[in-house]
């Protein structure tokens, strides 16, 4: 089908009728879901940071380690990290076209998100339990 190099057929034409990838709406739905959750979570996060501006170390430590604030912080961290990982995936798919660099970028995006997310979660849990 695509053997003729002068064919005007696009790659879409070549894969049509082969069936869907079965994951079309998953990304878009999770993006909307995390956006929706992040509206109140972002307001709560800004409120928490604002209440800690200029406070001394022990006050900040105690506040971030208190159950209510720690739970809100953890929800904000997990939701926003997942949201930004999905967003960056879209940006990479839009602008990085080389097969190798695209795969590498997508992998690095996942590594970065997991590393930063885990670091933040570990720090909040340590403030709560140590």
């Amino acid at each position, binding site marked *: 089908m695509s053997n003729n190099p*002068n064919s005007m057929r696009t*790659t879409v034409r070549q894969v049509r009728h082969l069936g869907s990838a079965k994951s079309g709406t998953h990304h878009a739905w999770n993006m909307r879901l995390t956006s929706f959750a992040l*509206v109140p979570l972002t307001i709560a996060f800004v409120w928490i940071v604002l209440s800690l501006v200029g406070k001394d170390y022990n006050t900040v430590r105690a506040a971030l380690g208190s159950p209510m604030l720690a739970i809100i912080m953890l929800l904000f961290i997990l939701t926003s990290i997942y949201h930004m990982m999905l967003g960056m995936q879209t*940006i990479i798919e839009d602008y990085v076209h080389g097969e190798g660099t695209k795969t590498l970028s997508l992998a690095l995006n996942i590594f970065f998100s997991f590393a*930063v997310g885990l670091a933040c979660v570990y720090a909040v849990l*340590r403030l709560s339990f140590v």
Partner: protein
Amino acid sequence: MVEAKTRTVSPEARRPLSPHLQIYRPMLTMMMSIMHRITGIALYAGTLLLAAWLIAAATDARAFATVSDLLSSVLGRLILLGFTWSLFHHLMGGLRHFIQDTGRGMEHPEREYLAQATLFGGLALTIVVWALAYASR
């Protein structure tokens, strides 16, 4: 000669294309779409600040003092100001997307109002939060 050249070009490249970004006159709705992406990228990098702040708080008083000093320096404050604005601009852009996801606010005057609301809402929230931060210090 000509045939040898076309051989290396993909089928898509030889088909007519619709005009892209550079062709259009800049419009507010277009700029807000681009800014949504740019602020998203800024927030992506900004998570490193949040991680640094939380890790410092979880480490000890000295680490916390170091990070606090860095963040309250002139450069630190500028970066935090940019982070705050990016957060609110992206939040307002997200709310605009929710409205437009329902099919509303896509026509002429409404979409301009929504783009303006994104821009000025983000700036206003940034100013309010920084005023509160300075007032409570």
